[in-house]
């Protein structure tokens, strides 16, 4: 395998190493994050897929044992590619951080005993988010060979994908600098927040949004993009998930919504192929067609709103079998074909 095999394919996000995936609850952001990680890992690359809310959504998507606060391989991709999974835990991140920077031995246990660790990771505002994003920051910057220095040194991961909090909370989560601004004006938390922020705002980061063609998720996508721009975070692509296959042509949809499809002709056709065309059945089909036409029209409106955002957009078809590990591979394939990875 050539070490630079990945460079041979052109993608929309060349140069981006940190992919943050958000979306309204129920849009499938976790599975999209998993698919993106798999797609990025193809051609022999190493990718870290991290979740930050302890939901264990990733392990469930890949059907592997629950992720721990240490990185473990969860999937193989084409040509020797590997996806590692991590459930970032604030407490573990804090203890690791203290160990790394303060060489804390017994005092760590002491802090734990007095409830100081709990305080820092659950109560102290903003600190939790600094710790969670801080761990991601560390993973992005880590070198494969920890002694190697300088820009030429190979990174431990070619890309890091984060299954981030949902749209309602993601900007607050990422904007750690603002979170701790009033509290920590100087000191280690402040400088840590500063470094994280400069990485998050750099061109090596992209915040992707997952949506469905429904009003509320699209509205949240629009709002979140505006919020991201307002704080200077790089907006990535929009992934439209669960796109329905177009079954009826435009003229049929129109006829269906106008109620202009002939019941008799449909009944005759059905009888020709030996379907018992009762009135109830024919009426049922026509009413399904009317509802379908209404949905398609709403979806068109929402698709237009998304097109108006002017962001690279990817469409993932609705998987009739539901999403399992194979479904994620299928989604990864689609994302690659469309140039997201």
């Amino acid at each position, binding site marked *: 395998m050539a070490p630079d095999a990945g460079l041979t394919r052109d993608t929309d996000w060349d140069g981006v190493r940190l992919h943050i995936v958000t979306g*309204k*609850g*129920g*849009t499938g952001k976790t599975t999209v994050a998993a698919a993106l990680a798999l797609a990025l890992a193809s051609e022999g690359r190493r990718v870290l897929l991290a979740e930050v809310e302890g*939901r264990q959504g990733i392990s469930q998507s890949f059907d592997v044992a629950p992720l721990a606060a240490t990185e473990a391989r969860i999937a193989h991709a084409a040509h020797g590619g590997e996806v590692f999974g991590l459930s970032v835990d604030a407490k573990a991140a804090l203890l690791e951080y*203290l160990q790394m920077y303060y060489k*804390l031995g*017994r005092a760590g246990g*002491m*802090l734990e005993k*007095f*409830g*100081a660790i709990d*305080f*820092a990771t*659950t109560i*102290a*505002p903003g*600190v939790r988010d600094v710790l969670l994003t801080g761990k991601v920051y560390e993973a992005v910057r880590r070198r494969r060979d920890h002694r190697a220095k300088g820009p030429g040194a190979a990174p431990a991961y070619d890309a890091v994908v984060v299954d981030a909090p*949902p749209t*309602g909370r993601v900007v607050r989560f990422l904007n750690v600098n603002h979170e701790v601004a*009033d*509290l*920590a*004006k100087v*000191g*280690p*938390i402040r400088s840590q927040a500063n470094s994280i922020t400069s990485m998050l705002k750099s061109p090596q980061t992209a915040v992707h949004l997952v949506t469905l063609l429904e*009003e*509320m*998720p699209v*509205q949240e996508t629009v709002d979140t993009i505006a919020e991201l721009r307002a704080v200077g975070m790089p907006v990535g692509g929009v992934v439209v998930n669960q796109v*329905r*296959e177009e*079954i*009826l042509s435009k003229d*049929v949809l129109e006829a269906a919504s106008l109620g202009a*499809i*002939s019941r008799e002709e*449909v009944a*005759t*056709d*059905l009888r*020709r*192929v030996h*379907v018992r065309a009762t009135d*109830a*059945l*024919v*009426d*049922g*089909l*026509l*009413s*399904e*067609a009317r509802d*379908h036409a209404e*949905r398609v029209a*709403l979806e068109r409106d929402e698709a237009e709103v998304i097109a108006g955002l002017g962001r690279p957009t990817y469409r993932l078809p609705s998987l*009739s079998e539901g999403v399992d590990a194979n479904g994620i591979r299928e989604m990864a394939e689609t994302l690659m074909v469309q140039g997201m990875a």
Partner: protein
Amino acid sequence: MVTVLDIDALLGDPQTRIIVCCGAGGVGKTTTAAALGLRAAESGRRVVVLTIDPARRLAQSLGLTTLDNTPRPVADIDDTSGGSLDAMMLDMKRTFDEVVEAHSTPEKAAQILANPFYQAVSSSFAGTQEYMAMEKLGQLRLEADLDPDSPRWDLIVVDTPPSRSALDFLDAPKRLGSFLDGRFIRILAAPAKAGGRAYVKVFSAGVNAATKTMTKVLGGQMLSDVQTFVAALDTMFGGFRKRADHTYALLSDRTTTFIVVAAPERDALREASYFVDRLDEEGMPLAGLVINRMYRVSAHGLSAARALGAAEELGDEDTLSSSGAGSSGDLESEVSNHARITQGLLRMHAVQAEVADRHESLAKRFMAGHPGIPMVEVPAASGDIHDLVGLRAVGGALAGQ
């Protein structure tokens, strides 16, 4: 055997005073809460709906344009049965401020409200929203009961925050409560006072090391803000614990009931299942499960496979008839056009029937794992819901109509 969740019986029971809607994000929790409130109000109850973070247009449909922490009447409901409907959006910071003001002297309250640490906790601590939602619920309940002869509200419907975990609102009050009167914060608050006591002496080296490390990590200024905050809150410690306990008691009261909301998707049902178990563990009263957005077909009795087969056959027949000699050109295209339409209808039906089957089997599997839990399914609407007409229709579906 599926037990049907009888929503009208639940809403009509005067013993039902609080309904808590919970479930994963994006399953239609807020819509369900609003639809329940509307249906109860139109059947004669005096209802207040507490929403946490409603979608803009849904909020507008309830007349909620500002987040002002005050219940306001919803206009245009049918009040012929003598009911009423108020709705409000939670302002968590304001609710926290009110708690502080209610429990301390004006000077002390001012000192707390001005503290940077308090400001951060009250507006961004991950559990504050949950804590304040429950606090507000307690307040609404007290307000409702001010005049027992003519209560302002006889039913409170509450939507739970879109938490990291659907269970956060059960845990957050306890967590914040136990932190606020826990050991760590006392050490922070009064190192001098504590140092005089014998048992602390043993630990004082540890305390010092802990404080020193905290200073290193958090920075001295943040630590001193915390200390000021804690000192100012000192008088309220017991109060916070009590309130958390009170909220918990209110949630397990027999006039409170929980409705778990889900969508027919693996993840949402898994969370619902987790929630059902957790409520059971805590002894919280569960009314049942609502599965929103269930896909249903209108053309019953035609399976997906049969529809696909028929569509294919129609295609074959069509080719046969159009390749047959002697038919006039016009008639031929006419025939193939409506055959094409029918074929499309059959294919569309096949896709819908497949989705409907999948939803049904997901729901069935859930019920098999949780026998005896009453359930009601709400069919998927073809559009979004953002007015009273839509909410009324959801209410009807919840009641099995």
